[in-house]
């Protein structure tokens, strides 16, 4: 679940600056910082304890050879060297990239279509939209369990539905060749609503004048979409793409609950592999190195997307888990 709140800072700052005749001493330039620190202090303590400390500790541990229950020794960058020659990790990296590419593009596509539909006015819109966003609010493990039943090769409802249109039964998540597309199906079902909400918010904020002139100029519907709507919602699509990329790279619950990375290691992503290394093999040092590289990968891919479109500012993506 994610939140796409973005800084309203600019608006607020502009308001503040405009206000004239402010009571003396209320907000002098130098004062606010000092005066308001105590309000933020407790949160700073909490964030330091549960976010900053684990980060520094992970970095430090990634330089150690350390399995739970055995002695710890400093090994420098050995863990990072080991990453490069770990075939299972490279496999996991490939699975992660395939999974992410599909799990970004498909929700973006369906989310855009859905947003265009929900942007129209129609009866019971609130109710229909409410049903549409239910998947993204549902508990991932709970829905993973139902999907597992639906994927069942003999008794699952999906193969029954396929049989109605004459498609032979599939092995879904039980076949190494179809496991990742099947998991992407679940991920797409789960997260398309978030993309829809972001784009819908963008559509609501669009100016109406260009559409009026397009109407007068006799533009077709496709032209209006292609040359007006699409360019104007592009920044919002980009925000959605970045959020989806971060979330898809980090995907854990659904993959772990449905396949645990299987069959074999066919759907083992970096996050799933990291879990095994750290909490099944208790190889803390190596697991920490994977965590560091994994985080770097997430940041790097997000930055790449960001640079594809400079108009999207970091602050717009700022999103709470």
């Amino acid at each position, binding site marked *: *679940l994610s*939140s*796409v*709140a973005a*800084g*309203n*800072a*600019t*608006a607020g700052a502009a308001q*503040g600056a405009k206000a004239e005749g402010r009571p003396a001493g209320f907000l002098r330039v130098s004062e*606010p910082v000092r*005066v308001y620190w105590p*309000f933020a202090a*407790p949160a700073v*303590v*909490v*964030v330091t304890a*549960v*976010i900053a*400390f684990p980060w520094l500790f*992970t970095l430090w541990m990634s330089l150690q050879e350390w399995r739970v229950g055995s002695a710890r020794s400093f090994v420098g960058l050995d863990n990072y060297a080991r990453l490069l020659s770990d075939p299972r990790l490279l496999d996991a990296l490939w699975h992660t990239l395939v999974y992410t590419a599909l799990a970004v593009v498909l929700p973006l596509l369906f989310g855009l279509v859905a947003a265009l*539909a929900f942007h129209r006015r*129609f009866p019971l819109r609130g109710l*229909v939209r409410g*049903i549409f966003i*239910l*998947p993204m*609010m*549902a*508990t*991932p*493990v*709970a*829905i993973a369990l*139902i999907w597992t*039943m639906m994927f069942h090769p003999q008794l699952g409802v999906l193969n*029954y539905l396929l049989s109605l249109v004459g498609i032979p039964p599939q092995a879904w998540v039980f076949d190494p060749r179809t496991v990742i597309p099947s998991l992407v199906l679940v991920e797409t079902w789960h997260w398309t609503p978030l993309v829809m909400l972001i784009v*819908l*918010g963008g559509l609501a*904020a669009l100016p109406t004048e260009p559409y009026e002139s397009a109407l007068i100029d006799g533009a077709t519907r496709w032209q209006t979409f292609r040359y007006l709507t699409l360019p104007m919602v592009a920044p919002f699509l980009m925000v959605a793409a970045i959020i989806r990329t*971060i979330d898809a790279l980090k995907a*854990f*619950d659904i993959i*772990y*609950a449905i396949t645990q990375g299987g069959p074999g290691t066919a759907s083992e992503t970096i996050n799933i592999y*990291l*879990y095994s290394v*750290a909490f099944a093999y208790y190889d803390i040092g190596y*697991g*920490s190195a994977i*965590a560091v590289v*994994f*985080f770097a990968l*997430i*940041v790097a891919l997000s930055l790449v997307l960001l640079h594809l479109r400079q108009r999207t500012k970091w*602050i717009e*993506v*700022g999103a*709470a*888990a």
Partner: protein
Amino acid sequence: MTLRKALDNLGLALALAVLVSPALLFFLWMLSLSLKYEIDNTAYPPVFIPTRFAWENYVNVFQSNAFGLFFLNSIVVTGLSTLAAIAVGVPAGYGIARMKAVKASVVVLISRMTPGLSYLIPLFLLFQFLGLMGTLWPQVITHLVLTVPIVIWVMIGFFEATPMELEEAAFVDGANRWQIFWHVALPIARPGITVGFILAFINSWSNFIFGVVLAGRSTRTLPVAVYNMLTFEQVSWGPLAAAALIVTLPVLLLTVFAQRQIIAGLTAGAVK
């Protein structure tokens, strides 16, 4: 013209039907699975609406497992971590908004980009060292990773949008900063607090990864309990689906009743 309009509406209706049916049919199927006897659940072709309802699936969930305990665990973990996040996050959002320290939001972004497991390795070791494993505290504390950034984020947006005039008036009347916050800013921001609370609650309630690592036999939260039912116990589909529905029902109900607030919170700034 009217024909075109009729066709247009028909197209929209069709598009909406196609878009909404995966969500609608999924949850109806979930309900159907949870209310069927094993013989109906293993029938082929599948039985969509059973002739007799297996209400005892729901009773079984609570009888054959420590489901009541796990429900309580979930309420304690989610409740405490959400309330704590409100307690520290609301003043922090206020402070950050008034300091205009927008850069602070980068912390929120980084916390989103960090995989949950990389918090877990150090915190797991720390909790072991402190001897807290086996209690609910490790989960309550770790869930702060989720809840605090959300609340701060939502509150920054709300406090920035509230007008300063009232606070200035209170300042002129001799109120101190704390009194201004408590008596002026906070009441205005109540809708924002609701949004922050709901989003933090949903995130924490649904979290699985922290519980998988940190929960012991008696400290499982609902998502972990349901996962264990799936993997470690041979349970028939009916009770499993009933358990899954029980786990996710609180957040689904919240979504239905607080849709407006949730959407406002999720898209607050992207729209600006």
